[in-house]
């Protein structure tokens, strides 16, 4: 678990450096997703960076496609591409588009960016595996804000009808969306306090965890594997901007670019975490 913690800190640092270098992108959502992504790509999924298109590989869909930088950095640290390539993020002719383009980079299993669509594609992949007697599993991460899209619930409904127990939906429940609602014009409300009951009502097996605690993350993915006859939703309770004190829980860091000074301070905080 210490190794995973260190890897996650490395990924967070690379995210900040890349966004700072590109002068564009999102921070809050990518930072909240990092620990789940780290666990998936370094422990859970059956993948091979040398053979990214292998037809038997496990699939991952980042339905909240605007957090692309978190996935790109995870893939780079995992060995899908040189870290140096991260500098091309958002640039002309880059494989690292603002939102994931599945045609460009092995490891991107679905194009996303228009919110609400990824889970349906994941359902298609999970059905594709069952219909072809393949054992690969499909993982899809959706945002809590994204779950306002009706299509998420179309997919949730049909997935439970087909009982696709090879499909896992991780809700990155970071409790902030781009702007959303506010009661006091100072703090912003969570899109939904606790999505668990909603997923249960749609017939899913639901596991609620601290999405930054690797022991809980591991337990949840194991439980998902042991769950038969229904898809699993892991409600990962996370903190937007996780890892940097002044970014945590601050909606303004949804897509703000750090100054040189802010980057330095943020990296210093994350370095301390690595030493731990």
């Amino acid at each position, binding site marked *: 678990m210490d190794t995973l913690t260190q890897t996650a800190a490395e990924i967070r640092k690379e995210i900040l450096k890349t966004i700072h270098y590109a002068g564009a992108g999102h921070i809050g959502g990518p930072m909240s997703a990092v620990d789940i992504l780290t666990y998936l790509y370094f422990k859970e999924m059956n993948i091979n960076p040398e053979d990214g298109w292998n*037809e038997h590989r496990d*699939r991952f869909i980042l339905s909240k496609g605007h957090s692309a930088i978190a996935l790109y950095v995870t893939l780079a640290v995992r060995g899908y591409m040189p870290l140096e390539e991260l500098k091309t993020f958002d640039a002309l002719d880059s494989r690292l588009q603002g939102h994931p*383009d*599945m*045609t460009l980079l092995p490891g991107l*299993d*679905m*194009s*996303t*960016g*228009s919110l*609400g*669509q*990824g889970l*349906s*594609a*994941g*359902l*298609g*992949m*999970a*059905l*594709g*595996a069952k*219909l*072809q007697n*393949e054992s690969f599993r*499909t993982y899809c991460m959706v945002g809590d804000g994204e779950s306002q899209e*009706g*299509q998420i619930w*179309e*997919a949730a*409904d*049909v997935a439970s*009808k087909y009982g696709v127990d090879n499909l896992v939906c991780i809700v990155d429940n970071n409790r902030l969306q781009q702007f959303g609602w506010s009661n006091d014009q100072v703090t912003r409300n969570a899109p939904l306090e606790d999505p668990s009951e909603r997923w249960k009502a749609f017939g899913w097996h639901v596991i609620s965890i601290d999405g930054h605690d690797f022991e809980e993350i591991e337990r949840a993915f194991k439980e998902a594997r042991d769950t038969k006859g229904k898809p699993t939703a892991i409600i990962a309770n996370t903190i937007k901007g996780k890892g940097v004190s002044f970014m945590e829980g601050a909606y303004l860091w949804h897509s703000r670019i750090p100054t040189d000074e802010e980057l330095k301070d943020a990296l210093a905080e994350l370095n301390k975490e690595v030493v731990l």
Partner: protein
Amino acid sequence: MSTVKKEAMRDRFSEVILDLAKNDDRVYAVDGDLANSTKIDIVAMEKPEKFLQMGIAEQNMLSVCSGLASTGLQPWAVTFAAFLSKRALDQIQVQIAQPKLNVKMVGAYSGLLTGLTGKTHQALEDIAIFRTLANMVVIAPADSVEVEKVMRAVNQYDGPVYIRLARDAYPYLFEEDYEFEIGKAVTLREGKDVSIISTGTQTSRSVEAAERLAEKGISVEVVHMPTIKPLDEAAIVATAKKTNLVVSAEEHSILGGLGSAVAEVLGERYPTQLLRIGVEDRNAESAPNEELLNKYGLSVEHMVTKISAYYEKYKK
């Protein structure tokens, strides 16, 4: 007309989709709870393991097809053209057209004649919408024989395709040995005074109009354009050079469809006088077929009247 032999497109479609589902491991029929209208219910009955019900949720349905295709399967998504082209458009664009995934999309009940359902179910914009999507192939067959030929050609093609079908019966225009090729026009009738370039269901009415115009001494060439994208530009230019008077005809809005595609080609390659026959820029309504064709200007009678006047005005 009663002596002309006809076959409903959806009946032939139904036979062929079952055949493909039985004989091609990759093929799945995907339904949006309209199987007994679109006639893919035959797959549910006779080959149930190749039938996937997605319920009344078109956005999810098309995204699921994207996921299925990404694992090597070849889903045929079948629903009404109106819902396919508009309700699920963003899903089709982002997850099927942009990544060029192998999903076959069939818009049943296209055009104006959708069985007394009215403007919510009529699809008069679907050609316009699909032909602007990069990577998309757009095909509108004219009769049941062509429906079968198109389906078999499309099943061999790797990539996203939109096929536009009609609900009702159309007279046979093609023999069973007809060879369809994606992107190739078919000259159904030679002529020297006026060229009609038509697609889909409007082709049979165009052929009949040409016969009537011949009786009035106007020699009309009919070029059937089953594939609207990729467009057979050479065939358009060739017939325009022959007659120098072109008419486009489609059961679709005059905006953005075949008429616009023909205008684009002629404008750039061989500027020629053009008359667009289609539904004007307005919404239609529910009514019996013949009454709709009359009111919205697509009947054979209307074609004859319009083309006669057009010819008299512009003939050399």
